[in-house]
């Protein structure tokens, strides 16, 4: 028994050591945002960005509330688009037979592991040609295309799990194929739709790169792009208080969101976890 306790103690010691930096990180975010390190006093002066536009190292950025609205609109649009495109596609890949399906499926897998980021230079030019630079539509289309293969893969897994008999039964009872898809199958894969919605939302909420590259108007940024502008302005951050304060305002909702949705992370087979 005593060797067992000793072993447990050892495991706890190591894990605590590994985890300490992360705890330190979390504590620091709160301290840096609220504590003035030179005077040692707590204050909320860093949170004045709620009331007035931010000015930092020569950059003037607009008031934060329209940016918050942009973030929400952008994130929900991404979720909407990804769900409405990936669910029918996954259904077709899982249930329907069509010419070129095998090739399409191979392509999907290839694309899922292929880094789309390497094509960004050419993508930029295509957007220039289509006059989609500096528009939300351009960012949306590029972002959605990049993450779709992963979403389709997850959704296909969920469709594969639903027994055929259920669909058969619906059709015997007089449903059309589409009716069976809409009324019977979709309710069965709702957990999957929930999962990809969460992934899409988290991805969209954190997206800063495409905004840095494709959006030039400061008032069109989302929170991630807004912070990216501040963080990459100088080599060295001059005012940690301001940046962590905005960072906290930006991160806390997503942590709360994550706590409520974290179960889906464990449910989803992200691929390769089991030998198929």
């Amino acid at each position: 028994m005593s060797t067992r306790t000793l072993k447990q103690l050892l495991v706890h010691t190591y894990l605590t050591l590994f985890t300490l930096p992360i705890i330190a990180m979390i504590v620091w975010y709160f301290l840096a945002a609220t504590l003035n390190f030179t005077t040692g006093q707590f204050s909320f002066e860093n949170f004045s960005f709620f009331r007035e536009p931010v000015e930092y190292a020569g950059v003037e950025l607009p008031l934060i509330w329209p940016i918050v609205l942009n973030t929400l609109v952008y994130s929900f649009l991404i979720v909407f688009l990804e769900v409405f495109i990936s669910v029918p596609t996954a259904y077709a890949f899982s249930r329907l037979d069509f010419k070129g399906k095998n090739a399409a499926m191979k392509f999907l897998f290839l694309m899922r592991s292929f880094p789309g980021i390497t094509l960004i230079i050419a993508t930029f030019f295509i957007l220039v040609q289509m006059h989609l630079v500096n528009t939300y539509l351009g960012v949306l289309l590029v972002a959605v295309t990049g993450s779709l293969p992963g979403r389709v893969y997850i959704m296909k897994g969920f469709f594969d799990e639903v027994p055929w008999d259920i669909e058969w039964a619906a059709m015997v009872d007089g449903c059309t194929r589409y009716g069976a898809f809409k009324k019977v199958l979709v309710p069965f894969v709702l957990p999957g739709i929930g999962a990809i919605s969460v992934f899409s939302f988290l991805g969209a909420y954190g997206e800063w790169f495409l905004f840095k590259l494709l959006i030039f108007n400061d008032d069109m940024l989302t929170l991630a792009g807004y912070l990216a502008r501040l963080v990459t302005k100088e080599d060295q951050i001059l005012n940690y208080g301001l940046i962590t304060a905005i960072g906290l305002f930006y991160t806390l909702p997503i942590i709360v969101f994550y706590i409520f949705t974290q179960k889906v992370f464990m449910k989803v087979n992200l691929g390769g976890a089991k030998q198929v």
Partner: protein
Amino acid sequence: MDHLTDRPAAVGPAYRKPFKKKIYPYLFIMPFAALVLVFFVLPALATVAMSFTDLNASMKPKFVGLENFKRVFADYNLPDILRNTAIFAVLSLAISLLFALVISVATQYFLKGKIAAVVYRVLWLIPSIIPAVVYVTFWKYLFDPTEGGLVNRILLQFGLESDPVSWFSKAAMAIVILATVVSTISGGMILLSAAINSIPEDLYKAAKVDGASEKSVILKIIMPTLKWPLMYITISELIGFVSSYFFIMLLTNGGPMRDTTTLSLYAYQQAFNLKYYGYGAAVSLIVVAISFVLTLLFLRLFDFDEMIKPSRIED
């Protein structure tokens, strides 16, 4: 109704699908196919086309043949950049795999079912949940070159250094790798934990009864289960490290000098900072080639046709 007539028809060769049914599946995949065509296939072709031109800020592309590729291989930055890419990818992969393995074995085997295990796992997930732009501020603060930075403050406090150390110019690559690893560990950890979790409890008990040591439980029971997830994580993270540069861009932007510039970041800088779009495309084509080889390797490892379940009914 029609499926009833379909069934015998599927056996006999006489049945031919009406046009409406043939077109039906394509309606489902059309939005997806259109997007992929315009924003994946087209850029892929355009990258190849651009790499043979001298497209730059003047926007008057001229065909230059293999000139760009000759330039890439004659580029005096190339050896350094390739070395950076290799160091970054291999070290990040090795460290994050090791930690993912240790943490998932510790939480799913040694502390299985304990609250502490959940707490550790959730804490480790936090770096990957925090948006990248916020996450990097912590690392910037930790290694801030002035005396305000945490590491410098501690060193000065204990008198280990007399002047603040400028970490980002001395150990930029180490910082970049550290920050990348801490946020990628959780991805591997989730997959490995799920795999360990699927091992039936009886196996451990049987091993205990037979007097197996912890070492042999880990080596003979747990490790074989992890073969597939480990291979998956290795290849997918390797592709990610070779091709993506988000953290590097936020943390050091490739500097100081070119100390943390990897090949894919170099392509980006050539195209968007210096406006040598053609040259940038040629460099990124090399990244594409490397990723492509890794991707094919990846598909080889996972028997492809096994992964695609055939659909079992004719419609």
